């Protein structure tokens, strides 16, 4: 019994942003309303798909009607749905934020007309990626995603952004090629690019090890796991604020999602040593990113390094390899996405307002942006993993998983990482409480920007209070089913 019309919501979720991108490109002057309408439509479609999945269980959709080996399948289970929702929530926020951000009285006004189509393409790529059940199709979406992201980074202009974008592009292409070579080997080894079929056919063999190595390396490069994170801070920090937000919140997560899918479905036999290695790298990322963040001079750089650290958490689930661990990692992904969006938005507001984001000079700025600094602080609460916030739930789950798996040292890393983030969050928030009243040239921040940041931060907090819903979603289609023994 479904209350939702039986539409192919999954297809809509992909086609709608594509159409939106085309429309925004065709009519640049109407880009903002077109983009907003599309964003709302996407959210509605994701909700529809969510309802469908909740009511009817995991959905499989054969594009072109051909079915798995020959054609391409779309597949929506709890995991992909969760990712779509993350994208929808963060995406909606970013869309609203961008309206204010790009609507500047100065000369850079035409940025908006480039931003919207690129952003819609990126969203389409994300949605397509999360729904795809075909590793070659995943390659195409990955490229779509990468190019859109690079173009968006470059949108900021200036030497930093362009160099960052260039480095990002090279890394992205390199990662894709690694992945593609892996796909080629898998296809030629097992005659299919469909994940489900591959999962049935794949057995450990030199080809599979080689393919796994290539694909994992490529995806790690794109996910910026330590020590392959070198490209991330400059790219994320130099981009325009909404772009930074969506890069940190969504784009890096996409490649992590693919990695997770492959790991769970195609390479479940991956040996423990590799998992331990990933965990170790994750731990190193947590510590390294945390320390680097602490010593950054610029706010956006700081937040970018914190992304490096937070990505590390996601990899702590690999050595644990139990359902709670995976759930925790995904909840971390979810809450980090929302919180980091809020945080980059806040940083964007500060930059917009004061014209700089040097941390030592923040005191004159943040005092006059109470909403923004509140958003930053609330998001920081989630990033630190303090209750009540999504980050706390995630940490709790990971901690529980670590103890259950009798590998408590990962829990120690979690805690250390939390302390490091607390250190830098409060380093920034502390500036809100100074007394300096130095006059400063400022530009009024549109209310929509401040409020969006705040709303996103509040959502990050609320994720800690309504955790059972997303967690229940995750169980649909039991993506971690085969790991239950852990």
């Amino acid at each position, binding site marked *: 019994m479904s209350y939702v019309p039986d539409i*192919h919501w999954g*297809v809509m979720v992909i086609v709608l942003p594509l159409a939106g991108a085309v429309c925004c490109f065709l009519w640049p002057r109407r880009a903002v309303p077109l983009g907003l309408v599309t964003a709302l439509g996407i959210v509605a479609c994701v909700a529809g798909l969510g309802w469908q999945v909740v009511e009817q269980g995991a959905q499989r959709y054969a594009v072109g*009607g*051909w079915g798995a080996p020959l054609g391409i399948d779309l597949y929506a289970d709890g995991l992909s749905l969760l990712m779509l929702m993350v994208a929808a929530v963060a995406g909606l926020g970013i869309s609203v934020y961008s309206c204010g951000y790009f609507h500047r009285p100065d000369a850079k006004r035409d940025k908006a007309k480039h931003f919207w189509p*690129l952003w819609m393409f990126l969203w389409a790529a994300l949605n397509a990626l999360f729904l795809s059940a075909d590793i070659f199709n995943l390659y195409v979406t990955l490229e779509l995603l990468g190019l859109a992201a690079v173009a968006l980074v470059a949108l900021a202009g200036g030497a930093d952004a362009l160099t960052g974008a260039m480095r990002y592009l090279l890394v992205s292409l390199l990662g894709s090629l690694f992945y593609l070579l892996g796909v080629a080997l898998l296809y030629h080894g097992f*005659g299919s690019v469909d994940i489900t079929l591959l999962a049935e056919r794949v057995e450990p063999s030199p080809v599979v090890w080689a393919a796994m190595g290539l694909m994992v390396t490529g995806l790690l490069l794109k996910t910026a796991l330590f020590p392959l994170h070198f490209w991330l801070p400059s790219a994320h920090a130099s981009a325009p604020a909404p772009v930074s937000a969506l890069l940190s919140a969504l784009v890096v997560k996409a490649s992590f999602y693919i990695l997770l899918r492959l790991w769970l479905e195609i390479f479940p036999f991956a040996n423990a040593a590799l998992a331990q290695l990933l965990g170790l790298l994750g731990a190193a990322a947590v510590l390294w990113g945390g320390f680097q963040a602490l010593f950054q001079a610029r706010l956006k750089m700081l937040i970018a390094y914190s992304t490096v650290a937070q990505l590390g958490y996601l990899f702590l689930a690999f050595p644990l390899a139990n359902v709670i661990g995976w759930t925790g990692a995904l909840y971390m992904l979810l809450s980090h996405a929302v919180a980091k969006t809020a945080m980059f938005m806040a940083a964007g507001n500060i930059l917009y307002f004061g014209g700089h984001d040097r941390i030592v000079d923040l005191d004159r700025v943040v005092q006059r942006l109470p909403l923004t600094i509140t958003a930053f602080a609330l998001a920081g609460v989630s990033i630190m993993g303090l209750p009540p916030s999504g980050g706390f739930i995630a940490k709790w789950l990971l901690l529980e998983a670590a103890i259950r798996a009798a590998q408590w040292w990962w829990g120690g890393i979690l805690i250390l990482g939390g302390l490091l983030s607390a250190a830098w969050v409060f380093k920034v928030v502390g500036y809100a409480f100074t007394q300096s009243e130095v006059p400063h040239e400022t530009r009024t921040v549109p209310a929509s920007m401040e409020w969006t940041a705040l709303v996103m931060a509040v959502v990050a907090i609320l994720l800690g209070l309504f955790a059972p819903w997303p967690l229940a979603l995750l169980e649909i289609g039991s993506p971690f089913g085969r790991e239950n023994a852990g």
Partner: protein
Amino acid sequence: MKKTRKPKSITENGKKPAQFRLLPAVLLSALAVGLGYAVLSLPSQASGLSEPVAANLESSGVSNPVTAVLLNFRGYDTLLELGVLLLALLGVWSLGAAPKRRESSPGLVLEMLSRLLVPLLILVAGYLLWIGVHAPGGAFQAGSVLATAGVLSLLTGWRLDTRFSGLPLRITLVAGLGVFVVVGIVLIPMGGRLLAYPPSFAGALILLIEAAATLSIGITLAALFLGGRPETGGHS
């Protein structure tokens, strides 16, 4: 994979110093050996998906298996790929206006040659598009040839009239993707699935899509060659 930080000193020829080259060389040799071993361990006989392709070729509407895969069986990939192309153009345009070239005379030979070649190239493109249904060829090949014609014209100093460089140009650029999406969507109420062509007029639909795609690919590639936004008549 060791492309972490670049050393401060870079040798004259734009390479990193020897000690930074040796290590990657060794590691990559090992990688090559490993990959080679993996490749060689593949079974020497494998048909892949050629059998199901052959079995379904009848209902795909075309007789060239590659085109069938490209536009029918895995048409969704191709749709996204047109998106990638358009996206690249968007990216290039977002970087700024096309760099101003020094206007120099292309020279007599080039000018003559281009006048001869451009119509020919367009004709070849049409042919490739048409033949793609049965034999090697198709939208991408045709689009590339079309793009050559465009590039050649651009090299000889031809510029699109600013009247057409606004919305008309953009419509042409998105035509391939647009037609593809529209066809795919329209088919949902009819066939029930995205991009599920009814076998009876699959061929015609594929040709329609390919034609639009060819145009778009050609123009897009040519526009990419320009390296930036063209001057438009209307707003900036």
